[in-house]
């Protein structure tokens, strides 16, 4: 095996934070591909540019995604990375593993790939970095026969992902792990066979803390919330105060709706005015607990800047029950895709299409009524559409008012 001189990236083996260069070198000990990846990276550091080509179309029979083709421009100089494809494995809900399962994944990857991974990729997949085209079918047979399927890539439903939820969190408002599993199973075809205009991501968080960042990076964000009261355990409130918490400064004054009061003894919450932001609950988790009806808020459209600027997801359904078998949610997802499919140009994310066609078109397409929870504020300019139906409804309302003598605004 060729020994590369790597003075620049060797600098990144120094210092306390774990080193990715050390990881690459560990893999390079018995692996030609990883070894050439080390030499290849040193060259990038020396010249300050990358050498990976645009992805090519590679994959496994019957699937349109899950493998991302990667080739180097410097295949002659570094033959081990001439082909260096990525294989995405669909992670289990909540990134829980047993050592036996992960060791098996490693054994197969050492046999057919570079021995390098990302645990995990940004979308959530377990990412296996670097293999050759002729190994792909074998890799797929080895993994799928042991219960591991490929994740997603391209213009498809990307591998759904969720927070730890009921597995290890007291704040979750629905079973994120189960919903994630159920949606992944329900939409296998949409995951493996790209049929959309562009990518579509679904992420599930159990509360407004949003530990999977669904509001910022999922075309569909499913964020847990509740409708009932916050239950207060006054003994625990006293303990927080005793242990040094300045409840007025840290809780009362930081409440965005100013619905909390504290008289030095008892903490009171005006629940009707609470907007369920999670600040007080997250800081006083022993004392405060959400109760009553549980469910989720559905938001749509977030994405990174390409093409016309970043978007955060917009609220479309403020509250929906999230209980197995999740029929209402699955139907909603299908309706959303149908509207998107009817209206999008190639490479248009759903948020961009909604911006082009208007939120009204989208909400009508998926059968959702307008309600104030969807907006920050109403429109400012008086440029708006009136359909014949809208005008007929306004006129009918006025006719009704004339009859009853009572205005209805």
């Amino acid at each position, binding site marked *: 095996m060729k020994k590369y001189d790597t003075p620049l990236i060797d600098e990144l083996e120094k210092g306390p*934070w774990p080193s*990715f260069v050390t990881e690459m070198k560990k*893999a390079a000990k018995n692996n030609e591909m990883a070894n050439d990846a080390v030499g290849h990276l040193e060259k990038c550091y020396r010249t300050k540019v990358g050498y990976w080509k645009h992805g090519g179309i590679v994959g496994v029979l019957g699937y349109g995604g899950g493998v991302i083709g990667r080739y180097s421009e410097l295949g002659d100089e570094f033959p081990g990375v001439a082909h260096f494809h990525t294989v995405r494995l669909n992670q289990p809900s909540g*990134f829980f593993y047993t050592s036996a399962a992960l060791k098996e994944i490693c054994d197969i990857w050492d046999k057919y790939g570079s021995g*390098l991974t990302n645990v995990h990729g940004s979308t959530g997949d377990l990412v296996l970095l670097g293999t050759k085209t002729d190994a792909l079918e074998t890799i797929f047979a080895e993994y799928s026969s042991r219960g591991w399927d490929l994740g997603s890539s391209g213009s498809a439903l990307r591998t759904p992902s969720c927070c730890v939820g009921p597995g290890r969190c007291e704040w979750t408002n629905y079973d994120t792990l189960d919903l994630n599993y159920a949606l992944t199973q329900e939409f296998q075809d949409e995951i493996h066979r790209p049929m959309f205009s562009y990518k579509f991501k679904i992420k599930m968080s159990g509360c407004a803390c949003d530990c999977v960042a669904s509001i910022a990076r999922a075309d569909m964000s499913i964020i847990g919330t509740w409708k009932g009261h916050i239950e207060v355990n006054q003994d625990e409130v006293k303990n927080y105060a005793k242990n040094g918490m300045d409840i007025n400064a840290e809780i009362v004054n930081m409440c965005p709706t100013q619905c909390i009061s504290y008289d030095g003894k008892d903490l009171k919450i005006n629940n009707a005015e609470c907007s369920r932001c999670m600040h007080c609950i997250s800081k006083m988790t022993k004392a405060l607990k959400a109760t009553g009806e549980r469910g989720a808020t559905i938001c749509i459209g977030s994405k990174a800047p390409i093409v016309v600027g970043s978007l955060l997801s917009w609220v479309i359904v403020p509250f929906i029950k999230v209980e197995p078998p999740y029929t209402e949610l699955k139907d909603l997802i299908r309706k959303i895709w149908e509207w998107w499919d009817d209206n999008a140009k190639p490479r248009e994310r759903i948020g961009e299409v909604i911006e082009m066609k208007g939120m009204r078109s989208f909400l009508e397409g998926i059968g959702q009524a307008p309600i104030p929870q969807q907006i920050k504020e109403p429109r400012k300019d008086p440029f708006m559409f009136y359909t014949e139906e809208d005008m007929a409804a306004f006129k009918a309302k006025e006719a009704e008012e004339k009859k009853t003598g009572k205005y209805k605004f």
Partner: protein
Amino acid sequence: MALPQRKTDIGPPHYKQFLPPIIQKNYGKWKYHEVLSHGVMVHVGDSGDKLWTVRVASPRLLSTTTIREHCDVAEKFCGGFFRYTTRNNVEFLVSDEKQLEPLKKDLTARGFKMGGIGAAITNVVHTQGWVHCHSACTDASGLVKSMMDELMDYFESKTLPNKLRLAVACCVNMCGAVHCSDIAVVAVHTKVPTIAHENFKNMCELPTVIGSCPTRAISPDPANKSIKINADKCMYCGNCFTVCPPISIKDPERDGVAILVGGKINSLRSNPKFSKLVIPFISNEPPRWPKAVAAIKHIVEVYAANARKHERVGEWIERIGWERFFSLTGIDFTFQCIDDFTFMRDTMRTSSTFKW
């Protein structure tokens, strides 16, 4: 040896088989948790059962050798059960308190770093960079390693007003969606792309390339059977390069990084926010990016010294105002900080109230 029979559309394995017995028993019945240190927290169930979590840093890019080491630690102390986090940390799950100290000792002996829980800096969300991506204008892993070496105290022990989330994207595609982080580093190109006209007609689709441009800077060039790029309109996003390989945008001396601050994704206290541009350009300086690292550390320290308890970077800045952020940090305010793309209407000030 014959290959095993492949199966399609089976989806991931069911998560239940990977949950340790204590989680199976207390599933959905957790009462509260306490952060014991930056490296350890304990969750308590309604049943009274306790589950300790020890969080360990990871460079995300892992060799199978290190994954096996995680497995070995989990087998020794956690019955083989463990998990990873959305920010690429490893979490060892302990149900027997007697195992906690031996586990920590073992992790220390192996050189693993515990931390990242609570009002701290945890692992950095980042993209592939030069390690494995075609459109990278910097190396994400190298930048992350360099900045976390400098910020290690905030991972392991030092406390901040609130958690501080860092992210690195190696181009504006931002495949890690870093645009809502307390401090985000985004690599940028700064030069109009060049075009290998002779390859255009064979490799690219004209409408796709024209449509890929967010500023409508691309028009057809019939004489060359190619395209033209209007230099007055191009903002160097590189999206045309993504859809058309003969377009070239990489430049070792003109590629660099920009720094954005004040984003967050949770709804605690205030709504989720985008990160906003404060430093438009720092040259790529591999292997250690000293100026970018110094800038990030400086912003962290000014935040730590000035924010109130529980304020995130963006909330602190909203309270003190942007002019105060620039005066406190001493960062030069430049034309790049004024939006002239999609958010201009929302971001200009429309009052005469400010600080000097």
